[in-house]
């Protein structure tokens, strides 16, 4: 394990825990952004520059903004004195058991010991060419999905006219 990996992984996991456990929703969202940035750092560690920067552009630049807007639109900014969770212990127990299962599987499997083969820079040009040849159908489906999602989100969130309900 290398030092940069340890720092980034610690930051990512720590901020993820904060994002899930803080009371104030805006603080949660801001910690979540740190998690996203940490994940981008991990992608950079894995030589996936393009995906790393895309992660920052999409998650830090767009998804987190959506989340903070939704938080501001759905509640007053002050947290009320009511429990933030329901049945916390059952959920945490399920999560911990799930983690233990996965961790045991990872540590037991020989795949986990595999070392990375050295590789050159990932060419974005090749990536784009693949998108336009081998992966053109997923790309088109994705375009359709994004358009549909955008229209759907706008229509769902549009305010109903007075007296329509």
């Amino acid at each position, binding site marked *: 394990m290398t030092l940069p990996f340890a720092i980034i992984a610690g930051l990512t996991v720590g901020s993820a825990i904060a994002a899930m456990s803080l009371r104030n929703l805006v603080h949660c969202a801001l910690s979540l952004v740190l998690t996203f940035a940490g994940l981008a750092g991990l992608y950079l560690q894995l030589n996936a520059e393009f995906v790393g920067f895309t992660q920052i552009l999409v998650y830090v630049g767009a998804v987190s903004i959506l989340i903070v807007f939704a938080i501001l639109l759905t509640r007053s900014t002050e947290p009320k004195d009511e429990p933030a969770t329901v049945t916390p212990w059952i959920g945490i127990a399920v999560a911990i058991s*799930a983690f233990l299962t996965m961790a045991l599987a990872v540590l037991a499997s020989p795949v986990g010991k595999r070392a990375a083969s050295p*590789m050159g820079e990932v060419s974005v040009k090749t990536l784009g060419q693949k998108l336009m040849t081998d992966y053109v159908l997923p790309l088109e489906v994705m375009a359709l999905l994004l358009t549909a999602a955008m229209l759907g*989100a706008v229509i769902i969130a549009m305010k109903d006219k007075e007296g329509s309900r």
Partner: protein
Amino acid sequence: MTPLSGYLLVSALLFCIGLAGALTRRNAIMVLIGIELMLNAANLNFIAFWRFSENPETMTGLMFAVFSIAIAAAEAAVGLALIITIYRHFRTANVDQVEEMKG
């Protein structure tokens, strides 16, 4: 260089933190954030397996991660729009108080 298991463990941890949050938090936005975390954990797995695969030149895992990021953005937009509509209707975004379907 860190072996594959390091990345897999971080990813598993992130997935379980997201799972715990999605299962326990009352606010619907927090549930959505938990789901986002789980999606991101899966993405990390894709990238890690791609990097440690025999021939990374095929870029399969990378491609999958790119598509998955796009899907996650669409999912967040629709999910948050639904939450805003639910809030307008029920005056709350807490998932345990939205119970009109209960008999």
